[in-house]
C-alpha cells in the first residue's frame, strides 16, 4: 500500500482547531485527498502551499466552531455580572460600605500620589541634570555639625581654574542682600513704583548650568554686562503688556541714577524647582564693598557646578579640600584667626545633586522652603496604609458575608461548577467592585482636589487627559481588585457542597483567625495614626504658643521706607504722634523669617588672636527697637539717646553672654574689629524658626532704613492702619504703602509645619473612618447572624447588658490587642519624629490614653448601633418563623 505523506502538521492542527466537528469530517477529508493527488502531480512543496491556502480558505463562518467555550464564557460572565449586581443591590448597606470605603481609600491614594509625584518632580528636568551640583559646606565637629551652601566670592573662580573636572561653575545669591530680595520697580518713563519680590544676583554661568530657557533676549549673554536685569515672562507681561521688554530701562527703588536695561526675558520658573526668582541681577563687575570680590572673609554665594561627563566626585571633593587649605586657611592664618586649625579639622564639602535639593536639604541651612523626603515617605506609607485598610474592609466583608453566598456556591458546584469557575466568578465580582470604587474614587478625588490643594498649599491638577494616568489607574484598578478578591474567592469557592446545602456551615458566628488579624491590623494602624496626629498637633501648638521672647501682636511692619531718604526720621516722629501708635522703630532686622540677617565673628577685646570667634547675629537697630518689639532687658539697660557713647555700645542676648562666658557681662568689651562696651543683656528671643536653638545675637545702634515697625495700641487695627496710610501718602504720594503684620508673618513661618499637621490629621481621620466602616459592617453582620440566638437568650432571661456584653466582647478583645500593639509603635515613631525638633514636647501617657480612649469610644459607638437595636428587639419577631 502506498505511503501517504502528510501536509504541514501545524496547518492541519489549525484546521482542526478552527472547524466545528461536522465540518472537519468532510473538509479535512477532502483536503487530505486533494493533498495526496497534488503531491503526486506537482510535488510536495506545491501541495503544501495549496494545502495551507485551502486551509485559510476554509476560515469562513460556516466552518468555524460555534465556539463552545467562547459563547459559554460570555454567558457565564453575563451571569456572574448579573449575580454580582443582584448581590450588590440586595445588600445595599454592605455594598455601600464596601464600595464607599474603597472609593474613599482610592481618592485618598490618588490625591497623595499626585502630591508625591509633584514633590518628586522637583529639579528633574535640567539637561545634564545628573552632572549639576550645588556645593555644600560641612562642619564635621561632633556635637556641632552643620551644613550650609554659602561660599566666599572668589571661591567659584578658584574652582573653575583649579579643578579640571568642572565644566562650568556659577554663583547665585538668593538672599535679602543689597538688591536681592524685594525692591520697588518702575519703568524709567513712569513715576509710579510697584513693589516686586524675588530678586536674586547671579553669574551668567548659572543660566548656562541650568539651561534656563529664555523667551526673548540672548541667554548666552544676558548677565554678562553690569546694570542689566533679566526678568521672568510673567513679570514682562505684567510690566510691559504687548511690548518687547528687551532694551527697556527700569529703575529700582526710585534711584534714578542707577538705571538697568532689560537684557533678557526668561520663561517663568515652574513650580517644581527649588529656585524662586523673577528677576536676576548680574554679578558681572559687581563689588558690594571694596575688595569684596577677592576676599575670603565672607560667605554669601551659593555655588553651582556642572561637572564634565565621567568626572569623579571624590576627586572633585579632594580638590575642594586643597582649595580650602590653599586659600581659606591661608586667609584665616593671615588674619591671625584661631579658627584655622578647626577649619583644617572639621571643614568639609559635599556635592549635592541639583535634583536632591528640594527633598534632601532638611539639614542644610539655606533660605528655601524645602520639601522633606521624610514627609514623602510618611505620606507614601499613609497612602498604602489607607489603601490596605480599604482592601481589608473589602476582604473582611466578603468573607463575613460568605454564609449568604454559601448556598449559591454549593448549588453551583452541584450543577457542575468547578473551583476554577467559582474563583473566576468571585474575582470578576471583586474587579467589578474595584471598578465601581475606582470610578467613584476618581470622582471624589476631583471634588476634593481644591480642598486638598488648600490644605497642602499646592496647585495640583488631575491629569485626566493623560494616557499614562488612565493606564495606571486602570492597571491599579485591576491589580487591587484582583488582590482584594483573591482570598475571598479562594475561601468561598472551597465550601463543600454537601455541607453547605445541608446548612452545616457555621454561620460566621466566630470570626476566622485571618478576619481577626485584619481587624487588629486596621485598628493598630488607626491608633498609631491617632497617636501621630495628637502628637503632631500638640507639637505644632507648642511651637505656635511658645514664649518667643518678644511681642509679635499688633505690630505692623511698613516696608520700602528707604525711599523716604532723609525724611525718614520726620516720618517716624509724625508716626509716634498718632494717637493709635505706641511706638515705632526703624531697622531691617526683625525676628521673623526672611528678614535681614548679618552673621559676624565676635571676640572678647584683646583675645582675637587667642580665642576662636563666636559667630553671632549683628543687628543694627535704633533706640526704640527693644521697646517696640516688646523684648525684655534682664541685665543692664537699653540704648539711650542721652548717652553719647551708646553709638559704640552693644546689647547682647543671653546666649551670647553664655558663650562669652561672662557671669556679669556689663562693662565688658567685645569686638568684631571695632570694640564695643556691653551695656545690657536682652532676654533670649526666637529670631529664627522656634524649632531651632537660639543663637548668639548682638545689637548696636545703626541706620538701616528699609522698614519701620509700628506698635499699635488700638484694638481697631483697620482704623489705625488707615491713619498710618494717610500719613504715608503725605510723605510718599508716588509709592503705595506696603505693610504686613508681624503676627501674620510669624504664622507664615510655621505654615509648612501647620500644613503638615493638618494633612496628617485629615488622613488619620480618613483611615479611622475606613476602619470604622469595616467594623460597623462586620458587627452588623454578626448581629444578623445571631438574631435568633439573641431571641432565644432573651426568652431564657438574658438581660440587655448581658447580651450587649456577649456580643461586643469579641470585638473589644480585638481592639484591646490593637491598642497593645499600637502603643509602643506609636510611642517610638513619634519619639523619633520629635527628635527633629530642638524644642520638642514629651510623649506623655495621656497621649496614649487619649488615643486609646478615642478609638475605644468610636469603636464601641460603631458596634453599639446595631447591637443595641438587635438586643432591644422583641424576641417574638425573630423567633416566630421557627
Amino acid at each position, binding site marked *: *500500500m502506498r505511503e*501517504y505523506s502528510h501536509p504541514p502538521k501545524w496547518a492541519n492542527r489549525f484546521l482542526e482547531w478552527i472547524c466545528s466537528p461536522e*465540518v*472537519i*469530517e*468532510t*473538509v*479535512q*477529508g*477532502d*483536503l*487530505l*485527498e*486533494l493533498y*495526496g*493527488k497534488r503531491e503526486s502531480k506537482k510535488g510536495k512543496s506545491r501541495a503544501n502551499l495549496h494545502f495551507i*491556502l*485551502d486551509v*485559510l*480558505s*476554509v*476560515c*469562513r*463562518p*460556516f*466552518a468555524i466552531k460555534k465556539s463552545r467555550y467562547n459563547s459559554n464564557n460570555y454567558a457565564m460572565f453575563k451571569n456572574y455580572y448579573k449575580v454580582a449586581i443582584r448581590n450588590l443591590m440586595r445588600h445595599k448597606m454592605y455594598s455601600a460600605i464596601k464600595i464607599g470605603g474603597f472609593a474613599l481609600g482610592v481618592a485618598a491614594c490618588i490625591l497623595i500620589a499626585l502630591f508625591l509625584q509633584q514633590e518628586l518632580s522637583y529639579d528633574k528636568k535640567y539637561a545634564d541634570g545628573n552632572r549639576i551640583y550645588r556645593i555644600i559646606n560641612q562642619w564635621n565637629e561632633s556635637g556641632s555639625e552643620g551644613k550650609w551652601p554659602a561660599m566666599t566670592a572668589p571661591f567659584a573662580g578658584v574652582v573653575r581654574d583649579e579643578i579640571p573636572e568642572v565644566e562650568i561653575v556659577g554663583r547665585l545669591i538668593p538672599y535679602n542682600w543689597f538688591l536681592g530680595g524685594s525692591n520697588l520697580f518702575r519703568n524709567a518713563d513712569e513715576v509710579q513704583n510697584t513693589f516686586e519680590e524675588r530678586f536674586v544676583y547671579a553669574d551668567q554661568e548659572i543660566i548656562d548650568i541650568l539651561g534656563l530657557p529664555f523667551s526673548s533676549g540672548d541667554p548666552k549673554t544676558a548677565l554678562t554686562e553690569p546694570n542689566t536685569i533679566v526678568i521672568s515672562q510673567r513679570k514682562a507681561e505684567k510690566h510691559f503688556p504687548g511690548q518687547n521688554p528687551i532694551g527697556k530701562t527700569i529703575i529700582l527703588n526710585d534711584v534714578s541714577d542707577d538705571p538697568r536695561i532689560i537684557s533678557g526675558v526668561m520663561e517663568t520658573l515652574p513650580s517644581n524647582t527649588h529656585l524662586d526668582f523673577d528677576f536676576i541681577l548680574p554679578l558681572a563687575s559687581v563689588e558690594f564693598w571694596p575688595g569684596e570680590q577677592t576676599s575670603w572673609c565672607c560667605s554669601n554665594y551659593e555655588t553651582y557646578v556642572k561637572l564634565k561627563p565621567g568626572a569623579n566626585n571624590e576627586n572633585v571633593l579632594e580638590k575642594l579640600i586643597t582649595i580650602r587649605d590653599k586659600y581659606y586657611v591661608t586667609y584665616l592664618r593671615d588674619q591671625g584667626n584661631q579658627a584655622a586649625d578647626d577649619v583644617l579639622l572639621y571643614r568639609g564639602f559635599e556635592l549635592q545633586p541639583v535634583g536632591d535639593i528640594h527633598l534632601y536639604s532638611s539639614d542644610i541651612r539655606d533660605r528655601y522652603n524645602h520639601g522633606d523626603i521624610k514627609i514623602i515617605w510618611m505620606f507614601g506609607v499613609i497612602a498604602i496604609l489607607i489603601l490596605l485598610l480599604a482592601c481589608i474592609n473589602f476582604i473582611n466583608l466578603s468573607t463575613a458575608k460568605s454564609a449568604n453566598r454559601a448556598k449559591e456556591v454549593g448549588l453551583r458546584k452541584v450543577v457542575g461548577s468547578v473551583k476554577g469557575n467559582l474563583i473566576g466568578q468571585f474575582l470578576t465580582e471583586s474587579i467589578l467592585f474595584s471598578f465601581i470604587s475606582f470610578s467613584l474614587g476618581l470622582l471624589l478625588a476631583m471634588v476634593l482636589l481644591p480642598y486638598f490643594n488648600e490644605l497642602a498649599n499646592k496647585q495640583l491638577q488631575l491629569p485626566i487627559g493623560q494616557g499614562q494616568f488612565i493606564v495606571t489607574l486602570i492597571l491599579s484598578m485591576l491589580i487591587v481588585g484582583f488582590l482584594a478578591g483573591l482570598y475571598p474567592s479562594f475561601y468561598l469557592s472551597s465550601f463543600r457542597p454537601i455541607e453547605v446545602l445541608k446548612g452545616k456551615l457555621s454561620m460566621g458566628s466566630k470570626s476566622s483567625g485571618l478576619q481577626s488579624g485584619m481587624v487588629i491590623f486596621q485598628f493598630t494602624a488607626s491608633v498609631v495614626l491617632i497617636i501621630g496626629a495628637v502628637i503632631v498637633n500638640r507639637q505644632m501648638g507648642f511651637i505656635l504658643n511658645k514664649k518667643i521672647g518678644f511681642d509679635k501682636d499688633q505690630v505692623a511692619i511698613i516696608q520700602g521706607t528707604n525711599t523716604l531718604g532723609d525724611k525718614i526720621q520726620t516720618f517716624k516722629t509724625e508716626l509716634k504722634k498718632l494717637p493709635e501708635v505706641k511706638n515705632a522703630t526703624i531697622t531691617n532686622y526683625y525676628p521673623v523669617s526672611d528678614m535681614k540677617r548679618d552673621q559676624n565673628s565676635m571676640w572678647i577685646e584683646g583675645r582675637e588672636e587667642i580665642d576662636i570667634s563666636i559667630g553671632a547675629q549683628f543687628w543694627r537697630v535704633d533706640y526704640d527697637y527693644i521697646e517696640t518689639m516688646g523684648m525684655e532687658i534682664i541685665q543692664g539697660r537699653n540704648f539711650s539717646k542721652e548717652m553719647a557713647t551708646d553709638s559704640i555700645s552693644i546689647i547682647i542676648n543671653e546666649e551670647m553672654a553664655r558663650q562669652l562666658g561672662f557671669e556679669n557681662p556689663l562693662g565688658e568689651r567685645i569686638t568684631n574689629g571695632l570694640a564695643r562696651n556691653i551695656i545690657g543683656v536682652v532676654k533670649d528671643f526666637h529670631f529664627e524658626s522656634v524649632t531651632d536653638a537660639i543663637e548668639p545675637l548682638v545689637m548696636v545702634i545703626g541706620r538701616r532704613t528699609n522698614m519701620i515697625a509700628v506698635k499699635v495700641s488700638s484694638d481697631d487695627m483697620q482704623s489705625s492702619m488707615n491713619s498710618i496710610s494717610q500719613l504715608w501718602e503725605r510723605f510718599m504720594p508716588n509709592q503705595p504703602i506696603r505693610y504686613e503684620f508681624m503676627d501674620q508673618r510669624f504664622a507664615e513661618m510655621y505654615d509648612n509645619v501647620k500644613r503638615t499637621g493638618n494633612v496628617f490629621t485629615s488622613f488619620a481621620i480618613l483611615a479611622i473612618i475606613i476602619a470604622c466602616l469595616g467594623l460597623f459592617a462586620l458587627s452588623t453582620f454578626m448581629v444578623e447572624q445571631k438574631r435568633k440566638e439573641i431571641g432565644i437568650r432573651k426568652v431564657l432571661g438574658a438581660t440587655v447588658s448581658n447580651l450587649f456584653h456577649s456580643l461586643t466582647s469579641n470585638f473589644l478583645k480585638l481592639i484591646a490587642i490593637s491598642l497593645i500593639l499600637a502603643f509602643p509603635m506609636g510611642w517610638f515613631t513619634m519619639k523619633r519624629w520629635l527628635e527633629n525638633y530642638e524644642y520638642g514636647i514629651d510623649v506623655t501617657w495621656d497621649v496614649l490614653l487619649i488615643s486609646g480612649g478615642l478609638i475605644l469610644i468610636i469603636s464601641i459607638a460603631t458596634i453599639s448601633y446595631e447591637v443595641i437595636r438587635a438586643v432591644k428587639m422583641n424576641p417574638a419577631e425573630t423567633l416566630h418563623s421557627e
Partner: protein
Amino acid sequence: MKLGSFEELVLLAVGALKDDAYGVTIKEALEKNTGNKPSIGALHSALYRLEEKGYVSSSEGGATTERGGRRKKYYLLTGTGQKMLVEANEQRMEFAKQIPGFSLKPE
C-alpha cells in the same frame, strides 16, 4: 429563494456527478467545465448553503486511508434543486431572448 451564480454551477456539478458528488469530485468537475479553480472553502461554504436551502441532500460515505480516515460526504440533487436549476435556466433564456438579433443556439 435565490440562487447565486456560483451556487448554480455547484448545483449543476452535483447534478452532473449523480451519485459520486463529494468535495473533491465537485471541485474537479467545476475546474473541468468552467476553467475556474474554486477554493475548497468557497466550495464547501456553497454546499452548506445549498443544503440549508434544501437544493441538495447529503449522505455519509465510507472512510478511506487517503482521506486520513475521514468520511466522504456525498451530495445529491433534490427535487427542489432540480426545479431551481430549470427555473434559473428558463429565466436566463427569457431574458436573453429580448436582445435583438441574438441567438443562444450555437451556429
